[in-house]
């Protein structure tokens, strides 16, 4: 916007403002009605939906779902869409940071003096696409289940031995109850991302590497070193036998 356009805008704005109405009571009335509506909605939601309290935080826990508030779903979904570990930083912080910087600097690169939506095709398209993308990712995040069951068959040599089979099933249960499914896929169960599929993890890396992964927690994965040793060992054994 150059000098002349700025002055033209201010002149026009002055006229429109003169033709307007005083803030009190006209705008104040509308604002108050809107605030009443907001207040009613909040009270209704507080009464109807309340505020639940889950089981106490426990680092050695069994059942939990690492699920953020709904307005962060789109971030988490971004992680599923962009999965290769070397790209994860780009998905988690890179894209949101770029979006925030673009948003912050919007008035400085959008120099178009035009304000009517129908005459700002680029800005409108970008804005509407952003809204659709965020709504879609939020929807995906909301409908991604938080499964707590793993149905994988043990390999034959384990299936044949009752003790080994029980150990295998115990390990599967620990995995299912420790929230791995929120980020990993085991056969038919779990979410495909942000973590790699673990259906055949035992064939890919040795047990020591698995146990190191659980303690050191690569990338965004939470660390599981605090699990009771009995559970931890069963978990590692279970993962190592997946081939």
């Amino acid at each position, binding site marked *: *916007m150059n000098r002349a356009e*700025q002055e033209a*805008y*201010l*002149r026009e*704005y002055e006229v*429109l*403002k003169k*033709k*307007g109405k*005083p*803030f*009190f*009571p*006209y*705008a104040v009335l*509308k*604002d108050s009605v*809107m605030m009443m509506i*907001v*207040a009613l*909605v*909040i*009270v209704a939601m*507080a009464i109807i*939906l309340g*505020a639940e*309290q*889950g089981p*106490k*935080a*426990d*680092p050695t*826990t069994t059942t*939990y779902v*690492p699920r*953020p*508030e709904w*307005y*962060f779903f789109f971030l988490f979904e971004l*992680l599923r869409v962009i999965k290769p570990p070397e790209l994860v*930083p780009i998905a988690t*912080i*890179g894209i949101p*940071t770029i979006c*925030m910087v673009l*948003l*912050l600097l919007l*008035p*400085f690169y*959008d120099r178009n003096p035009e*304000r*009517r*939506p*129908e005459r*700002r095709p680029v800005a409108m398209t970008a*804005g509407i696409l952003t809204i659709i993308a965020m709504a879609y990712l939020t929807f995906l995040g909301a409908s991604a289940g938080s499964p707590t069951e793993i149905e994988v068959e043990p390999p034959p040599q384990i299936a044949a031995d009752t003790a080994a089979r029980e150990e295998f099933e115990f390990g599967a249960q620990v995995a299912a109850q420790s929230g791995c499914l929120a980020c990993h896929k085991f056969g038919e169960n779990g979410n495909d991302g942000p973590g790699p599929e673990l259906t055949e993890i035992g064939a890919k890396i040795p047990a020591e590497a698995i146990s190191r992964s659980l303690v050191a927690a690569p990338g*965004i994965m*939470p*660390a599981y070193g605090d699990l009771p040793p009995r559970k931890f060992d069963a978990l590692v054994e279970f993962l190592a036998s997946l081939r």
Partner: protein
Amino acid sequence: MPKLPSALRKPSKPGERGNGARRDGGGANGVEAEPHPVREKTKEGAIDVVGWVDQRTGASPFLTGLLLRKVPKGTNWFYTLGSATLFAFVVQALTGVFLAFYYVPSATEAYDSISHLTNDVFLGEFVRGLHKWGATMMIILIFLHMGRTFFFGAYKYPRELNWVIGVVLLILTLVMGLTGYLLPFDNRSYWATIVAMNITASGPVVGPYLADFLRAGSEFTATTLPRFYAVHMLLVPGLIIALIGAHLYLVVKLGTTAPPWLRAEAKPKSSREEKVG
């Protein structure tokens, strides 16, 4: 122009007329022509108080300027979204104070203090619900308000700075959501926070430092919760209040935009809006 109390309508400047007696003779020092009924007296007493305060603060030109400033032609319901966001923030601040009366920010006691608040304290669960759903409403409203200013082109000259302040407010509001989520200290909030901190730490350049600052170390420990609490109820709200102040100052100073489709150069004496399509 709507009726205002006389004290507001005609601000008398200090020292202009003796001890602040007003032209309409209603003040304590005025000559009373006839006895007033009690109601009349009370009313004048109130106006006297207004006049007294006004004489010492000089607030009335400011207030009349604030209240009677014109909002442009065409101002519609979309313009209420900003003050609705402000209202949601006030709800959060008030319910937050109530919650802080009972909340204990320690890793060992936080959960039980929330249980106590929810189950034993009068209206405790209701206020927790207000705070929780108020947060959701504030997020929805702040996005809607941002959308309004975007689609109306309100971020353009001369309001660029107000847009920038707005984006910072948006980020701070999201930080409130993130830090508040941990405080009930149940399993879900604990694990979600672990993941959220790992995500933060994976960020470029400042990521690891930011995560270490929030966690109070490289691991989630017993000091993490008090830190989240301080950020959630002191640091970020303080910044938000200061920035809302700046935001509203600019709104009043620059005026709100007229809807973009309105044109001033309509034919003289005709208030018909010129729609260009």
